[in-house]
């Protein structure tokens, strides 16, 4: 096999795995948008906040330590314990559920029936608040997140492909784990929304509030549930991205990459988020590989957005989104 083709295959595989991570972030958007019509600008920051909280709990950091030290003149940093990863993940999830409840109770319950743009502005406010809050609570330095996921070159794939083609593929173990976890998560979410009582209630709320109330569905409960699930997805995304590139505030910017993913897949489709993520992941890696050298590289920065722009012109509802037909 020619080297060029082997490279291309390797690039594609890496692209697929990067795409899985994009899809993971996009999923959080889709969930909230479907159930409440809110485009949650804060999804990326939620991933950051979840990752920060997870690291903080694992390392036994004292929350708000800078604030406490500044006010009381003390010098506290860490508790004398460290929390095992699994327990820390559970605790972080509890924090995310509490956050979901607070977000619904303090903000969105009061904005029921408002224009989408107002809800959107509220999530922008939430994003900046949460970013600052995370900063005060856990500090702003870059942290490493290690929950014990395997990392680095997968040697068996390297060896296998080397024996087969005379060229070893470089596939990161972390990417493989992320792919598996994302696949499980997606399967679970689809099963949840199709086959459980709460899933059916969630779809009902997404469709018609009045009708949902009349069959005994509590809107507040469903919204808290949805924000909790989005928090959970954010936590998983935060763990994956954090393990890959450290927990830092640029993590909140991955949300921007989810935008083209959503435009491709459609804002209301769970499968759309996955396929969109994969297309963007593979597309930008292959484009960089094939076209990048001709135009001086750095195409990864803009490829996804240009692709999304083309989609907006020719298929605004995305690949899987519901076509909006207004009856006149």
């Amino acid at each position: 096999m020619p080297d060029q083709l082997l490279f291309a295959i390797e690039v594609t595989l890496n692209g697929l795995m990067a795409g899985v991570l994009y899809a993971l972030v996009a999923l959080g958007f889709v969930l909230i948008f479907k159930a409440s019509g809110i485009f949650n600008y804060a999804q990326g920051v939620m991933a950051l906040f979840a990752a920060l909280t997870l690291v903080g709990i694992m390392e036994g950091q004292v929350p708000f330590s800078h604030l406490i030290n500044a006010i009381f003149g003390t010098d506290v940093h860490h508790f004398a314990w460290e929390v095992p990863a699994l327990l820390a993940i559970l605790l972080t999830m509890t924090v995310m559920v509490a956050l979901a409840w607070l977000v619904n109770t303090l903000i969105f319950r009061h904005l029921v029936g408002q224009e989408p743009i107002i809800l959107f502005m509220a999530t922008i406010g939430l994003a900046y608040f949460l970013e600052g809050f995370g900063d005060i609570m856990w500090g702003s330095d870059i942290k490493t997140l290690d929950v014990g996921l395997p990392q680095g070159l997968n040697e068996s794939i390297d060896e296998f492909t080397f024996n087969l083609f005379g060229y070893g593929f470089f596939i990161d173990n972390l990417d493989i784990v992320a792919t598996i976890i994302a696949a499980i998560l997606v399967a679970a979410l689809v099963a949840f929304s199709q086959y459980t009582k709460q899933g059916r209630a969630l779809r009902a709320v997404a469709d018609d509030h009045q009708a949902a109330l009349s069959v005994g569905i509590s809107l507040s409960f469903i919204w808290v549930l949805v924000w909790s699930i989005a928090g959970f997805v954010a936590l998983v995304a935060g763990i994956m991205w954090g393990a890959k590139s450290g927990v830092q505030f640029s993590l909140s910017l991955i949300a921007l990459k989810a935008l083209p993913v959503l435009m491709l897949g459609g804002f209301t489709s769970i499968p759309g988020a996955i396929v969109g993520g994969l297309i963007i992941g593979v597309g930008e890696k292959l484009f960089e590989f094939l076209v990048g050298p001709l135009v001086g590289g750095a195409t990864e920065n803009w490829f996804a957005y240009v692709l999304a722009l083309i989609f907006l012109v020719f298929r605004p509802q995305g690949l899987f989104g519901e076509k909006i037909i207004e009856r006149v």
Partner: protein
Amino acid sequence: MLDASEGYVTPDGRQIGGVMMEMRNITLRFGGVVAIKDISFDIREGEIRAIIGPNGAGKSSMLNVISGFYNPQEGEVWFRGAKRPPMKPFQVARQGIARTFQNIALFEGMTVLDNVMTGRLTQMRSSIWAQALWWGSAEREETENRAHVERVIDFLEIQSIRKTPVGRLPYGLKKRVELARALAAEPKLLLLDEPMAGMNVEEKEDMSRFILDVNDEFGTTIALIEHDMGVVMDLSDRVVVMDYGKKIGDGTPDEVRKNQAVIDAYLGVAHD
């Protein structure tokens, strides 16, 4: 006046039970507008009770008070012998009061079957985890619910459109699907807000037959709002007449028909 504890026998020989729901001196205001003014009436077990009146009389507001969408400023709602505290609509639904809407509120994106299944939500008990894993009781529950829903679908003769997304259905069928969803909850009290509005004669006859059959077969108590006087007089056991937020008549169709205030409200009366 009827005795509160005992029922009565209808002309066609059906036994009507004691009071199921009682509205006591209900007053509902929106700002300065008084939608309902000091109205009292009751609904009895097994009865078909109609609320009629000209446009803007406050009929829909009354139905919304019963189903918890509005909470009245004054007055008491008694249900099954207990005073009901102010409630959210979903809590009222969980008490066994199902309803349909004047301008149809269905889940347009879902199939007919899924829509009717949402009516069973109040009946489902197993936990989220059991359902996610399709475990023991959850599986049995889903099967039972599905069986009940299929009976309702058969009953209302909508088998052929079970898998059709509701958004594609014509108006008359949507009304029937909405009734199916309400029935799926096995309600103690079924509230119908203009079930025949906008229907042609044939569809009206079908709907009237279904309402009578529901009452007959399941013994469901029904309260309905309707414009079509002919339909109301044929269907209902007792009628409340409202005009400008006030109750102007209450009794059997024959009594109401002879009531001078009702005649005036419907035909207009010359003021000197």
